[in-house]
Each structure stands twice: as C-alpha cells, then as structure tokens.
C-alpha cells in the first residue's frame, strides 16, 4: 500500500509525479507553494507512524541510501539515518573525515564513485554553497540537500513549517497567512534562515529578520523580508520567534564583541519574549547555545517552545522526501 494509492488528501494535488516533478531536493527556492504543501501533507502519515510502537515500513526495502556528510553534523545525520531505516532502506553514512576527500579526491570524483555503486538516493551536506547542485548534475539518482554552505537547508525549512503547522492547528489556526515570524541571529551565515524565509513566505507568512549589521546579508530586503537591528522592535507583535545560533565556525574575523554582549542585545529572555504577541511560539533549529541566543527558561517553556517538536517533525519530513523522491525508481504508478 503506497500513499500514491491512498492519498489522505485526494484531489488537492495533481495526479502522480505532477504533484512533485523534481528529481532532487536542492532547495526551497526550486519549489512551488503547492509542492511544499504536498511534502508537508505527505509527512503527516510518518508523524503518525513515528508515534506508534512499531515504527517501521518496508516501503524503501532494497534501496540503498548514502548520507554523504562533508561537514560535521549530529542531529541532521541522525535524523536522515532514522528516516531511511524506518522506511526499510539500507542506509550508509559517509563521513568526510574518513573519506578519500582528505586524500585530495575532488568532489566530482567522489560523486562519480557513489554513483557507480548504484545507490538509490544520496543525502549531502557540504560546506560550500552550490556543492549539492554540482553533485546532483553528475549522478543518476535523486539528491537531497542536507545543507550546502550558506545557501539552503530545505528539509529544515520544511520541518520547521510542519512543526509550526502542528502548533498553529493546536491553537485552532489553519493558515499561515499573515503570520508574523521573526527570525533572529546570524542571518548572514545561515542556510536555515534562507530556507525558512523562502518556505514561510511561500506559505503566506510575513517574515522579519533581525541581526547586528555585520551578520545581516546585504540585499536581503529583496527577498521580501523586513529587516531589524533592534531585537525589541523586531519582537513587537511577532507570533513566532525563531532563534539562530552564532555560526562561529563560518566567521572569518570578528563579527560581534563577545557572547555576553550578544546576549545583551539579541538574547531571547523571558522579559524580551513578553514583547512578542501573547502565546508567541518559540523555535530554534539547534544546536542551542543556552544563555547566549536563548535562555533556558524560554527554550524549555511548556506550551510555547516547540523546539523538540521541530526535531520530531524532522524525521517525518525526511521520510516524506525520501519516499517521494524514490517513487520513480521504485516504479510507483503515476511516477515511473
């Protein structure tokens, strides 16, 4: 039984592969709004499954998925690994530190090598923007972007939207339209910010970004966001507050004087949160620097913080992406 046969949302989307015609998932920027909705809707069944005691299906049985991570990761890698295994696929993790990349092999050669092993999907994280697209152009199987440089992290954007959708529905709200979301932190170095801006805007939200000038990318207004340097002003009336960590590993030179000073201006404290809309939702893609960009009292605030829901939705979204992108290879009717 496949979801293509029994869609829980029959009639809302075009039939078969027309609902999601992309071979790979490189970024939210490539997706139409209805395709985002499609992935979110597809993920719901996996949210259900993941809450059962037996969290397993054989839908991707026999398929091999490689998680090729050229950059360190714990949670995203784990999330993709669990997603693949719960779908019954054979999942192999490749860490750059252990690979021939260190021996001077080029990225293209690595891609060709993976391709020659006849894998059915490749999940890639890489430190350079555009690296995942470069690999996708060289291989025959679907490629999923698990974060490329400062460009995009599409599954994070999708999982945040799914977690937010659940939180909104729990509050009796069905739509994102007009929802005011404030994203605060190291916008410059954040692929999560870019994917979230694109995803939330596509769903109808109004996005504000807040950062000190040195961490605010130039020209980001052209993406349709409102920019703030003053966090208090950015919080005014915000219904969702998404905090990002400082990506010290991507900083060359000094961007802020000290973490203490950063917290003084941009830390989400309980007092600051009070400036946002009543019941405002708190999000963070992790890993958190407690006491810097977010205080523990806020991060753990029951009923307001959905940070652990984000992690839960991550597995479901990645299962949905792996399922949808491998349908052609699996010969699912309407997709092959």
């Amino acid at each position: 039984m496949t979801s293509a046969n029994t869609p829980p949302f029959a009639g809302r989307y075009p039939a078969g592969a027309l609902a999601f015609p992309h071979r790979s998932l490189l970024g939210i920027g490539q997706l139409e709004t209805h395709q985002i909705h499609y992935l979110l809707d597809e993920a719901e069944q996996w949210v259900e499954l993941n809450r059962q005691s037996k969290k397993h299906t054989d839908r991707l049985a026999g398929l091999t998925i490689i998680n090729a991570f050229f950059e360190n990761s714990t949670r995203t890698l784990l999330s993709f690994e669990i997603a693949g295994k719960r779908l019954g696929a054979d999942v192999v993790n490749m860490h750059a530190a252990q690979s021939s990349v260190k021996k001077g092999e080029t990225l293209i050669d690595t891609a060709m090598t993976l391709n020659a092993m006849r894998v059915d999907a490749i999940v890639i994280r890489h430190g350079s923007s555009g690296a995942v697209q470069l690999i996708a152009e060289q291989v025959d199987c679907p490629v999923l972007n698990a974060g490329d440089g400062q460009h995009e992290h599409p599954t994070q954007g999708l999982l945040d939207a799914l977690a937010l959708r659940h939180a909104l529905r729990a509050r009796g709200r069905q739509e994102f339209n007009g929802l005011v979301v404030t994203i605060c932190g190291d916008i410059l170095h954040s692929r999560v910010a870019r994917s979230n801006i694109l995803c939330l805007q596509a769903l109808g939200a109004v996005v504000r970004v807040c950062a000190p000038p040195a961490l605010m990318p130039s020209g980001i207004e052209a993406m349709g966001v409102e920019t703030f340097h003053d966090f208090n002003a950015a919080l005014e009336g915000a219904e969702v507050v998404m905090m990002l960590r400082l990506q010290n590993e991507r900083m060359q030179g000094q961007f802020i004087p000290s973490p203490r000073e950063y917290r003084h201006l941009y830390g989400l404290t309980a007092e600051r949160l009070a400036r946002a809309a009543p019941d405002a939702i708190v999000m963070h893609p992790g890993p958190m620097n407690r006491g810097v960009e977010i205080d523990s009292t806020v991060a753990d605030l029951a009923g307001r913080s959905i940070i652990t829901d984000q992690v839960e939705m991550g597995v479901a979204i990645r299962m949905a992406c792996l399922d949808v992108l491998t349908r052609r290879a699996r010969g699912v009717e309407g997709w092959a």
Partner: protein
Amino acid sequence: MKPSRPLTITGGLLVTPSGVKGGTIRCVQGMIEAVGEARPQDGDEHVDAGGQIVAPGLVDFGVFAIDKPAFHFGGITRAALMPDESPPLDHPARVRFAASSGKPDLWVHPLAAATVALEGEHLAELALMREAGARAVATGRSWIADSGVMLRLLQYAAMLGLVVVTHAEDGGIAGTATATAGEMATRLGLPSAPAEAEALAVARDIALAEMTGARLHLRQVTTRAALDLVRAAKSRGVAVTAGVTPAHFMLSDLALQGFRTFARLSPPLREEADRQAVIEAIGDGTIDVIASGHDPRGPEDKRLPFADATPGMAGAETLLALVLTLVRDGVIPMERAFDLVARNPASLIGVQAGELRVGAEADLALIDPAKPWIVDSAKMAATAGNTPFDRQPVQGRVTGLWKGGVPVG
C-alpha cells in the same frame, strides 16, 4: 624574423587613430611604410582585403597564460604577461625567459612582480627586471595591503619610468569573498564583499600616485564609485589610466545563477548599475584599456563548488567580438575600439605598435566585423574553455593576422 618580401594589403578599411578610411597599407622589413596611399610593387606579397577591416594586431594587457592558439584566434599579436606565474616573475632571469617565450609570432611583454613572491612586502629587483625586458610593474592578482610598501613602490617605479599596474580591491574588506554583496550573493549564500572595496583601493592608489608622480594603471575598474574617482583624478591631471575586461561590461552578477563557476571572476561580477557605469566610462574615455584577462582554467579548477573554484576566464578569443558589440551599440566608434585594445595598451608598455602609422611595427589583423559565430566552450582554441559567454552568439572574426609583416598560422 623579418619577412622575405614586402606586404601590401589593398581594398581594406584601414582603422587609424583618426578614423576608418579606405586605402592600402604597405609594410617593408616588418614595419609599416605607408598607410592610405600606396601601390603594391613588383615582388610584394599582395593581399586583397575585399572590403574587410584592416586594424592593428591586438595588444592584450594583462594575461595570465601564454596561450598562442587563443591569442591568434582573437587577433592578438602582443600580450602583457601578468607576473602571477609559477614561480612568479620576480627575478630578472624569469622575466628574460618570459620575454622570449612567444617569439616570433607572438610577442610577450612581461610585467615584473612589484614585490618578492607577490607577497606585498619586499620590493623586487625592478631595475634589473627592466633590463631583462619587463615593460611595467604589477602587483599581480592581489593588492598591496601595506600603504607604506605601496608608497615606496610608486616612488621607485616613478624614478625608473615604469608604469605600476595594480589590482584595486581592499583586501581587508574583500577577504575571501567570491561575489559582490547584494541580492544575488545573498540568495546563493556566497561569501561576498561590498563593491566599495574597489573604490577604497582606487582612492588610496590614486592618492599615492598623485603624491609620487608615478604612472598608475588600474587593471580593472568595475564600479561606478571607483570610476568616478578615476574620472576626477584624470581631470586633475593625475597620470592614471584604467582598464576593464568584457565580462564587466557584458555581464552582471545575475550570471552567477546556478553557481556557474565560469562566472567566478576577480574582481567579482557587479550589480547591473555598475555594469552600466562601466559602459559609460568606456564611452567617455575614463576607461583606456579593454583586455581579455585571459586565464584558461580546466575542470580541476572550475568543476568545483562556486566558492572553491579558481577565479578567471579564458577571454582571448572573445575579446575582439565583445568589444565590437560596443561599436554596434554606438558606445564608441570603430577607431576608439582599437585605441582600447591596441593603441593605449601599446603605449602603456612603451612599444611602437598598436596603431596603423608609418614607422610602427607591422602587426596587422584583417577582420570581418560582421561575421557571426557562436562562442562554444567545448570548441575553444584556448587551453581551457572557461568562458562565461558560452553559447552566446557574437559578431566579428579575424580572417588574417600578421606579426611584423609575417603571416601568422
């Protein structure tokens, strides 16, 4: 190598500094003997131009590789070689070797490294390299960060009468940027630096040139702010000249779409308003030189993620055709096009070439300015096909080339 017999080209449109006129050109012993009024004499090699353009061979100012097939395809008979070789041109022996590396059918004019190993710290042996054939001094791909070193370099070069060629990008601001700050870089998530990095460097170098009386050539000026500084300096009488490559008047940073590494250049492509400013500056004479910036790079340098790819483009083959688009668009007349690609660069390196005048070297190109062709990175004469103009239809093709009166190829 001297030609065995005189060369006479009849029936051509001669591009001279004062305009394009029909006529005949005759060359004897590798030098131009008559322009306009002349007749082929017995024993001359006689070429009928058939109404095509007869122009000076191009003098390509600031290339990174000696790539003869590409230069000859593009009508280039002389090239000023940047010092960024491996090892760098910071020693008289290397300069002497480079100076003879293209003869007889391509003359290479080495630009001496301004500092040892191009590190921007210790002045190189500029006088000895001048003796060895260096025609100017260059800072290479990067700027000299230390203003004190730059000041002493300009003072010294002024004494030696050598033009100083600089790369104008403030290193502190540019850092490891691969794109110009703006919407495109932000959408693609590329490390970027504000365009003002150029104006800052230009302002400093002009101030130091003004102070020392040195002749300064800014190899690439690509932003409105920096061009305004050059324009103002020229009106004050500062001995400053400016160059650019076709990339910066043909393309904006929109060309980075899809992480196309062939569009990864140094300085990076700018926003559209700056592209328009470059075209204006070519039109009003603020820009003196258009060069190819020829830097062929194979897949090992270019088939990489954008930020990891090496900057540079193979430009020798497309230089002429792209400059001719400026003539067709009415930005400049034909004779000015050849000032930009031949006469002005020849004057910067102090060689008697780059124009059709009696007594100049007989470096000639026969050009069909309307001939259409399509740039194809897979079929380039260059050692690599890294052109940002791939698949672009262009017009203008070299149909004959002479170096010192001797046919090339």
